[in-house]
């Protein structure tokens, strides 16, 4: 192996060599620079390879032929190899990226860049505290120089602010070092640690001196991590410096300083862990909050960088409970942050304007969008990236030690961060692109692409590590996920090819796996893996390549498939996050869906975090904790933790079923989605939440919290969701939103059924799972087809389409018959089981509410037929045609399915009914050929079908007979007088159709919930906006912050701890 000191000697040699060159020989100078960086990178990479692959032992590098502590020594071990590789690689890529700037500024700038990166390696490698100081100063000065590479004039003042602060830091550091040396007689870090450990045994004068000395060193190093509030200078640097430098500053510098902090914590010992944790968590949460109202991209990234550094500091401070896993977690978070932040800063150099919305310039370049997605997914800790595995272990270990407040704060910060990152992504996809598209040269692109590739590679590596160390699966080896990711690579193919592959793939996967499901899961598997392809048939109508659709859709389906196949909590949660992200991308594709997609992802991630916490608590409380905690062992949980876990998980799952209170994202998200996406997210995705509830109730059953039966609470939530969802639907003018609100109601029924906690209730919930998939998919497709043809979704703008779009009409008609539960269609089966089921409960009030919800459903469903297909045809719609074939085809399949299912419900339900016997032996149904018997009565689907059919035909014939002489009235056969109304639609009979009901029931549909969540976001924004005035831009104030920070920590530690 090449001695690691050559990282330093090569950089210095090259830097000095540059001085010999003439100012004009820039090309040569640049070549030398790149060669030096490449060499440095190769040395680090070689060591990393040796440590990882060959299991090499850590190496001490001695200088001057002596032994430490008398000479300075460096150490090369696994962490050092990884971190120097990170630093040098970032340096190399930034040097490539900076080509123009470096040519403009000449060899001196190149030398400064080389030395800056070398100094970072020095910080990482050195084991001598004063040597650390020297490298600190080198870093600080080089930073002062590199800031000047920026084209932004303000960088000058930012650099000066940094120099002021670094002067203060070096004063504290030096004083600390000399007193530590005096107390221990050594400058060697390992020696200091040993000496400190011995000295601190006694509580004498010298120990006090050492503690103070350590305090000064520690605070100086931590100050370089930009802790809140002493970090205004760093934000200014991030905002104004050249993006390539910010990439180094964020990725490499922060990592090196974190490692230096780790070395200091090694000296100081566990006494200092709480302080590190405190600084870390405050910085993490506050910085993320402050980033919320930010509109400048680089400054926002700066806030995010600071936050991430705080998070890693927190991890270092939790070493006492994280133990062996510390490195896995800290590196997972750190590398995710570093790669993503470097990539994002490099990307920001391709965007001309500094407004976040200007990033829409990237939209035309799928490669860049993909890179961006990779980066924000890494930052948000989504699977399959290292941050995800790290977050999982972190939360689990914290939960094991009962540090729940910390978990809550971490997840709050993470949620806020995900919020503004995804908001940003929404801008890219949805905002108007500026005139000039992203300008990228090959070398700039190289840096971004390498970062994105590194992100995926790290994801694989971390999955592998998680597998070997913690017994979790490597997500990147999961077949469904690989299949979905394949679409990213082949996104250049025409849409129909991808569609075919997608359908074939899903069906094939079902074929491969269908023997593995139990009857309950089989139903979900069929809906996802067969139902999915049926909806995908509608996607054949799309032309062109439809970039981005298939990766997103397949990611969602992959997540769903993995969800129902998951047997342990990790697999379940990973799948949950995957399907959440996939569906978010899908939803975002809708024309006006930017805000709705954002609220969807925020609610979903919030819910996911609750689930994560729930699982973590469960893992800590399972009677016999296993390396992998099987979902089934949820049933072993006992008081007092069990009900809390139940609550966390239930709320988490109900964010997906859009239970009332958590529903505000649904109408927009489902309503604004594309024609073939709405059925996917409504018909299939919502079932994920129900599946979660099934799993939860199957394992945990009834739980009591403060004397409240939690399933009763669920019962109420279900009933209220049903009532209010239906009520909100009836006042809706927009056909797709109406259907969306209706989903809230339908899911309410299903939750209600589940919460009944008996055989029939569950059967009913399953009926709803199946039925809702069929009829909601069908109705959404139908409404989507109509909207496609008419160009509007407002129902009062339609009318009389029955003759022009007869197939859509039939689908809608069948659909609403099925939804409303009128015989003969399968909805009735659902109702029948439903009525049987609710009769088994003895809670009266929710029962009444859910009864009430029934007729209300009929009111809004009626409008679909009445307003869209009946009535007068609008003039502008005279020439429209039936919806495209590919949109009609799945609808017809659904019609057939409904018929079949209505006649032989036993096909699906019979096995489940038997299966449910193991949970509820009582109250099952009796399936004899043709008829189904319950305790309360019997149901003969075939007879009902026949009777229903006869009645329908009779009525239909009679209607034709009485209508044969009816006179047709032309639409304009009305005499208008007076003025043209200001809002013409108000004169339409179908507008505000249920206004009279609104008078009576309107108070129930006031958007209280929307206002509540709106108020929450507003408060966060306003608070953050006020708080960030702290950073008034004055270098002196920042210095004051630094001093205040030092004093506060001093008082907290020495007074609070009371030495």
């Amino acid at each position: 192996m090449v001695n690691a000191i050559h990282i330093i000697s090569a950089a210095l040699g090259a830097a000095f060599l540059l001085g010999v060159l003439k100012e004009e020989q820039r090309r040569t100078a640049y070549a030398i620079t790149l060669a030096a960086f490449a060499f440095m990178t190769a040395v680090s990479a070689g060591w990393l390879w040796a440590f990882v692959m060959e299991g090499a032992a850590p190496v001490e590098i001695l200088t001057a032929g002596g032994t430490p502590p008398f000479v300075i020594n460096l150490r090369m071990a696994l962490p050092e190899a990884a971190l120097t590789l990170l630093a040098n690689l970032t340096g190399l890529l930034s040097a490539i990226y900076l080509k123009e700037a470096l040519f403009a500024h000449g060899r001196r700038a190149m030398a400064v860049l080389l030395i800056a990166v070398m100094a970072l390696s020095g910080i990482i490698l050195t084991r001598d505290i004063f040597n650390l100081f020297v490298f600190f100063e080198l870093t600080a000065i080089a930073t002062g120089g590199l800031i000047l590479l920026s084209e932004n004039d303000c960088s000058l003042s930012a650099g000066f602010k940094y120099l002021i602060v670094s002067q203060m830091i070096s004063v504290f550091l030096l004083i600390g070092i000399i007193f530590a040396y005096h107390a221990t007689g050594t400058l060697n870090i390992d020696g200091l640690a040993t000496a400190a450990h011995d000295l601190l045994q006694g509580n004498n004068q010298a120990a006090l001196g050492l503690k103070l000395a350590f305090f000064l060193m520690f605070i100086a190093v931590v100050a370089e991590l930009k802790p809140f509030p002493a970090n205004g200078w760093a934000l200014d640097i991030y905002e104004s410096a050249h993006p390539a430098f910010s990439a180094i500053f964020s990725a490499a510098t922060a990592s090196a300083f974190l490692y230096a902090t780790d070395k200091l914590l090694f000296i100081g010992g566990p006494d200092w862990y709480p302080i590190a944790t405190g600084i870390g968590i405050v910085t993490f949460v506050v910085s993320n909050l402050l980033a919320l109202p930010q509109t400048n991209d680089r400054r926002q990234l700066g806030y995010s960088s600071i936050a991430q550094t705080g998070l890693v500091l927190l991890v270092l401070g939790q070493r006492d409970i994280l133990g062996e896993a510390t490195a896995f977690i800290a590196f997972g978070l750190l590398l995710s942050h570093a790669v993503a932040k470097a990539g994002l800063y490099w990307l920001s150099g391709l965007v001309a304007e500094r407004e976040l919305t200007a990033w829409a310039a990237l939209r035309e370049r799928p490669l860049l969008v993909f890179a961006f997605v990779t980066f924000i997914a890494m930052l948000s800790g989504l699977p399959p990236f290292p941050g995800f595995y790290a977050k999982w272990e972190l939360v689990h270990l914290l939960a094991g030690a009962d540090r729940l407040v910390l978990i809550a704060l971490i997840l709050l910060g993470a949620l806020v961060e995900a919020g503004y990152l995804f908001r940003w992504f929404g801008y890219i996809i949805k905002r108007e692109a500026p005139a000039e598209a992203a300008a990228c040269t090959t070398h700039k692109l190289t840096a971004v692409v390498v970062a994105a590739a590194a992100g995926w590679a790290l994801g694989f590596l971390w999955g592998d590590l998680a597998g070997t160390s913690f017994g979790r699966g490597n997500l990147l080896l999961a077949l469904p996920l690989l299949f979905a990711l394949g679409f990213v690579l082949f996104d250049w193919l025409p849409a129909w090819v991808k569609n075919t592959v997608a359908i074939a793939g899903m069906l094939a996967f079902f074929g491969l796996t269908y023997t593995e499901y139990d009857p309950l899961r089989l139903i979900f598997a069929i809906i996802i893996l067969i139902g999915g392809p049926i909806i995908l048939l509608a996607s054949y109508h799309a032309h062109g390549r439809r970039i981005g659709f298939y990766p997103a859709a397949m990611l969602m389906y992959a997540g769903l498939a993995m969800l129902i196949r998951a047997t342990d909590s990790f697999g379940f949660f990973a799948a949950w996050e995957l399907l959440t992200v996939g569906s978010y991308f899908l939803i975002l594709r809708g024309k006006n869906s930017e805000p709705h997609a954002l609220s969807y992802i925020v609610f979903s991630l919030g819910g996911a975090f609750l689930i994560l916490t729930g699982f973590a608590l469960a893992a800590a409380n399972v009677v016999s904790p296993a390396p992998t905690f099987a979902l089934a062992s949820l049933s072993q949980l006992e008081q007092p933790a069990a009900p809390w876990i139940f609550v966390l998980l239930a709320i988490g799952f109900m964010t997906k079923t859009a239970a009332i209170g958590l529903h505000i994202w649904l109408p927009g998200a489902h309503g604004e989605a594309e024609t073939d996406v709405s059925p996917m997210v409504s018909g299939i995705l919502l079932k994920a939440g129900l599946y979660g509830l099934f799993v939860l109730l199957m394992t945990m059953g009834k739980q009591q919290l403060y004397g409240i039966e939690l399933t009763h609470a669920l019962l109420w939530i279900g009933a209220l969701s049903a009532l209010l969802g239906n009520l909100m639907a009836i006042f809706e003018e927009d056909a797709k939103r109406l259907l969306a609100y209706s989903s809230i109601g339908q899911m309410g029924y299903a939750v209600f059924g589940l919460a009944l906690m008996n055989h029939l209730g569950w059967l009913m919930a399953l009926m709803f799972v199946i039925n809702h998939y069929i009829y909601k998919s069908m109705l959404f497709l139908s409404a989507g087809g109509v909207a496609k043809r008419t160009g509007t979704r407002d129902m009062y703008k339609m009318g009389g389409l029955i003759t022009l779009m007869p197939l859509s009409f039939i689908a809608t008609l069948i659909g609403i018959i099925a939804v409303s539960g009128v015989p003969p269609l399968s909805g009735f089966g659902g109702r029948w089981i439903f009525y049987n089921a609710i009769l088994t409960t003895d809670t009266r009030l929710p029962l009444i509410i859910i009864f009430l919800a029934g007729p209300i459903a009929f009111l809004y469903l009626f409008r679909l037929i009445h307003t869209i297909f009946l009535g007068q045809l609008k003039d502008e719609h005279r020439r429209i045609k039936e919806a495209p074939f590919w949109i009609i085809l799945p609808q017809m399949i659904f019609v057939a399915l409904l018929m079949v299912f209505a006649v032989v419900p036993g096909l699906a339900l019979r096995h489940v009914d038997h299966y449910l016997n193991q949970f509820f032996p009582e109250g099952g149904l009796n399936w004899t050929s043709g008829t189904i018997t319950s305790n309360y009565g019997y149901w003969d689907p075939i007879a009902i079908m026949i009777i229903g059919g006869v009645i329908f035909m009779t009525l239909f014939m009679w209607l034709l007979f009485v209508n044969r002489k009816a006179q047709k009235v032309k639409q304009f056969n009305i005499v208008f007088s007076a003025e043209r109304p200001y809002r013409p639609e108000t004169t339409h009979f179908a507008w505000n159709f249920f206004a009279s009901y609104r008078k009576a029931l309107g108070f129930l549909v006031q958007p209280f919930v929307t206002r509540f969540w709106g108020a929450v976001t507003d408060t966060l924004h306003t608070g953050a906006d006020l708080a960030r005035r702290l950073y008034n831009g004055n270098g002196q104030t920042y210095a004051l912050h630094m001093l205040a920070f030092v004093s506060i920590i001093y008082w907290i530690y020495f007074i609070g701890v009371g030495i």
Partner: protein
Amino acid sequence: MDYIAMTTGFILILIGLFGALTNRNILRMIVAFTVADTGVNLVIVGVGYMRGRTAPILDSAVAAADAVARIIDPVPQALVLTAIVIGVGVTALMLAYAYKLYEKKHTLDIAKFTELKW
């Protein structure tokens, strides 16, 4: 004497920090920081001092054999050498910045350079 040097050093540090935080003129801030730097150096050398011993240089007066009993701790001195040079480096850099800032706005008032904030 070590206490005298240390106390003076600490006082100089405080004076320097006070000056850097209250003077709005950039050049004065830099001057104040050099005062603080000198204070730091004084503290470091003060910490290394031992009563009744001589400088760590071996010559006719101090033979190599009894150096252990005669000389003071050489390490802080070596550290201060480095610290002084680094200090002057930072000072020069800050001065160059000060000049450039002045060139940009024709003022040396730090409170005028607050374009970046929030």
